[in-house]
């Protein structure tokens, strides 16, 4: 017996995959138009540009507050209605509540939603309803279904089936089981997920705003397009503060609820 019987041929095993990855990345780089020189020059341009955006236009600041509030409201409503929608899908996607074929369809739809980028949903809704808050709120709501739907469905399935069975055995119908058995148990998780999603939805609300949904995102986009760069910086700063504050708030509230939160 020599060491050869035991020595892992590690290095040889990694050679081919590494080569493959290198070749692929070179190809991909060509496709994306990577150019180090462009990047170097570009970053300088970028840096200068950002420097020129300073100082922020403090006078524009008060004008930013209302759009900022709008973005928050959009995110809030999107989360609220999204939670409702997600709840519905989740209940239908839990094997302890729904029949198998309903459950599988529901899970499939939830998964499908996750594959749809929110932007695509927005574009479709804007095409249907026009610009404004409505398509944005609907987009955020539908967007909740993917993430919250799956998490909620899993939480519902993890509830001790004894609870549900015992309620059914004393004659409660499906609705009563859900309201009195399922709902109280998943409430902490639900709130936790909703708070987390609210953070996400606020960022999304800003981004969607730039595509025409209104709010502070729209302000930013508008300022850029009208070359009012100082104003744009103001908008950016407001966005930064907003996102940061929401993150803190969401985390703080979630700490207080503190259930075995799978998101933490």
């Amino acid at each position: 017996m020599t060491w050869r019987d035991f020595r892992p041929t590690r290095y040889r095993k990694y050679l081919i995959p590494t080569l493959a990855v290198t070749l692929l990345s070179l190809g991909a780089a060509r496709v994306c138009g990577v150019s180090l020189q462009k990047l170097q020059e570009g970053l300088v341009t970028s840096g200068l540009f950002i420097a020129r955006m300073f100082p922020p236009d403090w006078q524009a600041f008060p004008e930013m507050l209302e759009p900022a509030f709008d973005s928050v409201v959009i995110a809030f409503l999107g989360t609220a209605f999204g939670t409702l929608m997600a709840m519905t899908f989740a209940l239908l996607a839990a094997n302890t509540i729904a029949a198998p074929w309903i459950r599988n369809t529901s899970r499939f739809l939830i998964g499908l939603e996750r594959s749809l980028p929110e932007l695509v949903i927005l574009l479709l809704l804007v095409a249907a309803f026009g610009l404004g808050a409505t398509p944005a709120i609907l987009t955020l709501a539908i967007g909740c279904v993917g993430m919250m739907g799956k998490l909620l469905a899993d939480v519902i399935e993890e509830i001790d089936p004894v609870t549900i069975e015992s309620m059914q055995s004393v004659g409660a119908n499906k609705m009563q089981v859900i309201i009195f058995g399922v709902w109280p148990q998943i409430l902490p998780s639900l709130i936790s997920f909703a708070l987390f999603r609210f953070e996400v939805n606020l960022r999304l609300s800003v981004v969607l705003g730039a595509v025409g949904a209104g709010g502070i995102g729209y302000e930013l986009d508008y300022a850029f397009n009208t070359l009012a760069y100082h104003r744009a910086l103001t908008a950016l700063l407001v966005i930064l503060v907003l996102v940061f504050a929401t993150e803190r708030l969401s985390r703080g509230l979630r700490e207080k609820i503190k259930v075995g939160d799978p998101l933490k």
Partner: protein
Amino acid sequence: MSLANFILPSKKYRQRASVSGLVILSVALACAYIGFNPLGFFTEFHFVQDLLGEMLPPNFDALWSSSSIGFSFLQTVSMAFLGTLYGGLMAIILSFLAAANTMPFRVIRAFARSLLSLLRVIPALGIVLIYVIAVGIGTFAGLLTVVTITVATFGKLFTEMIENAEAPPSEAIYSVGATQVQVIRYSIIPQMLPTFIANLLFSFDLNMRMAVWLGVFGGGGIGFQLYLAMRVLHYKDATAYIFFIIVLVILVEKVSDFLRKKVLKASA
């Protein structure tokens, strides 16, 4: 027993009822403020119907007619792939520079940690903007954005993972007279490698979705084509694109999940 006690028997119930009432009230107020009619979706449904009429049946020919669509798909996938590769590598390197047990020099560590914190704070929108200004609209800007966001997302996570690595084997390796680099290579990296790879695979999944997104903001690729198509009201083409985007995203998700399970199983 007063009426209130009869209807709302326990304090806890009252608390919950008032909280729910508050929530419903604020939702109603918010709707009124912003002009959103939740039932509008159903009353104005004909809009959706009209749209659906325009969008269906999907025009799959649009996919084959011009080679540029296929190329756009390639671009988006490339953005996701390269973004994950470069971003992942940079995140790993930065995390080693930022972890207390692998970087003894405080200055470098502080620099790395603040860089990571800074990246996490800047909103994605800002990052796209910076790169678009720097290198113009197109897939290069999109790629750079993906790289940056990947580093922002995983940098801090990796740092924490490294700092939570088992200390005893490292102590033993120092005891044989090894240098810090050797300790990293033989103790820390073997421990971290499976999770790094699993996270990178997950990152590929996320970046794929991001790459589609970014197309609309000037990142190029299929996202951009989709946006264009909708802009010029070629809804049937758009539907075809959307269909394939979904297929692509689901495909990447399945592959990523599969490989992740394999990696986690092999390391157990």
